């Protein structure tokens, strides 16, 4: 008997002794109070009207949603989706080789590498973003070094651009891609890779037909973990983008705090949540046929 099945039996015993609901209770209560209720409040506010001084007046209206139809908001959402998609793609392109490399190291060195990846998290994200400002600005570290090496004669305009925002987002969310990918790759049985070599797979088909299918859950988890927060980012566009353009996060923050238009801000938040949920559902649906296939085999 393996230890896994005995722990399963113990868990089943726990369930029957305490009853499923009682075990579910604390988690359910937490979700209701801290997740569901605030969402209901946001939904309710999005259907209300802005008071003259910025409060919320409880007069039912769909005006906030009608205002969302303005093409301006469509462009902001489009640009944010594009930037979040590019961030996810770049994190995946950089994170996969890194995770693969780490997963193939001896265990002791793996731990060291993972700690290196985590160390930046011990510092506040705001502070790290300010550090990028010092690196990228006209008289910053990067320009100084490039000028000293005489690679450029005039400083490059690096800061306050969409590229700087992309850099900041990829930098910030890369660990969220690497960790689930590492967990997935580390679990692959090396014998499968050897078998692929034995069956005359070249590098590309090894990658495409063995590694990708086996690490798919990790890829999906990593993409979700990177895509969602970068879609809602607002600090990075403000600091590294110089507030020259807006992402959805900035727009929502602007409506809540600056314009004191909570109803419109709430309507925007609801729309953002719907887009995120919609794209997740679509993604999982797109995955499910393959999972079913594998189950039937």
């Amino acid at each position: 008997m393996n230890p896994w099945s005995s722990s399963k039996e113990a868990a089943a015993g726990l369930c029957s002794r305490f009853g499923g609901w009682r075990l579910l209770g604390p988690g359910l209560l937490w979700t209701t109070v801290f997740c569901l209720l605030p969402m209901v409040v946001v939904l309710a506010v999005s259907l209300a009207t802005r008071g003259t001084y910025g409060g919320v007046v409880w007069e039912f209206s769909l005006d906030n949603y009608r205002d969302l139809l303005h093409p301006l908001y469509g462009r902001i959402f489009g640009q944010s989706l594009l930037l979040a998609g590019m961030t996810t793609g770049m994190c995946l392109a950089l994170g996969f080789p890194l995770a693969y490399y780490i997963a193939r190291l001896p265990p002791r060195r793996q731990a060291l590498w993972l700690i290196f990846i985590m160390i930046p998290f011990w510092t506040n994200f705001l502070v790290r973003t300010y550090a990028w400002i010092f690196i990228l600005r006209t008289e910053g570290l990067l320009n100084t070094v490039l000028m000293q090496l005489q690679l450029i004669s005039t400083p490059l305009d690096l800061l306050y651009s969409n590229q700087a925002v992309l850099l900041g987002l990829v930098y910030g969310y890369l660990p969220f891609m690497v960790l689930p990918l590492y967990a997935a790759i580390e679990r692959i049985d090396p014998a499968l890779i050897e078998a692929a070599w034995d069956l005359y797979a070249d590098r590309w088909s090894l990658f495409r037909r063995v590694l990708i299918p086996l690490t798919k859950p990790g890829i999906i988890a990593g993409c979700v973990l990177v895509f969602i927060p970068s879609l809602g980012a607002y600090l990075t566009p403000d600091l590294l983008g110089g507030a020259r353009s807006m992402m959805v996060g900035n727009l929502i923050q602007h409506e809540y705090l600056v314009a004191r238009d909570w109803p419109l801000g709430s309507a925007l938040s609801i729309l953002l949540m719907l887009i995120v949920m919609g794209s997740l559902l679509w993604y999982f649906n797109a995955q499910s046929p393959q999972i079913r296939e594998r189950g039937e085999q």
Partner: protein
Amino acid sequence: MPVSRGLVRFLGFVAIAVLLWNGCDRGRETNQQGGAGAMVTLHYFTWSDYVSPELIHEFEQAHGARVVVDTFSSNEELLAKLQGGASGYDVAVPSDFMVSIMAAQGMLAELDSAALPNLKALEPHLQHPAFDPTHRYAVPYLWGTVGIGYDSTVVTPPPDSWDILWDKRYRGRISMLNDQREVFGAVLRSMGQSMNTTDPTVIEAAKHKLIAQKPLVKTYASEHYDQLLASGDVVLAQGWGGQVARAMRDRPSIRYVVPKEGGTIWADCLVVLRTSPNKALAMQFINFLIDARVAARTSERLLFAASNREARAWISRDILENPAVYPPAELIPRMEWMGDVGKVMRTYDRAWTELKMQ
């Protein structure tokens, strides 16, 4: 390799925990001191970097009270926190237009003028301000202007008009405030309009002028533009006088000008909140802060002008003569207070968002 799998789970957990904690951290810049005794505690809600600790300490010594300082970084944040149910604050520091909003919402306690003898020495233009002409709710504390900070070695001849911010020679070396009312204020004054206009066609024209300016603008920043000026990243910055004055310390060639078309005049005011549990002590605290000598020391430290005109006697000459701190008297009639524009706010909002999406 079970060890490293446990580790990766642990690290993942730490990552999420740290991320959540960082998120909470942004709103938690408090300065709470634990411990309680018989001492009365006064809760002072003010701008970040807007107090001088030794003055607070002197007040604590003199009145046997404890002062707990909590900070915010914008008027909107102040209002949102108070509307969101933050209570227990005694004294807050909203700016002029926010005083009218807070008063209209019944958030402010009426002041007791008998407890505020220092109120008699206010600067003439602050004696009957439009947002609270009789000082029923608010006492002006520090004041100043919004103008242009520039590097006099690069920008020649010295500018005297908002139009310099549309000068193509300075492409990519201009910063504007990241504040829709101030940015629209500057362009509206340059067009000879009031910065409180509610005329949609005027706002539309102002928007087009701003869109034309955007390629020249390096960044819209309300916080660190003084560093950008000092480091030479920008040579022209729309900004608050006091902050430009701080950049002058790092780069002496920085100058400040209030354009001839006029600009914003502002005053941060001391108010007592209606929910304050210690109103009498709150009045004493306000009276202390606007005392001539205390206000002079505050001014010298923060480089904003004091509301008490007698404070001028205690402020060093170079600060008094710095137009970034004390604007020349002849300019004051040309300045305009930022007023509430009510429902037209959404028009400004839309225009601002359109500008950002160009």
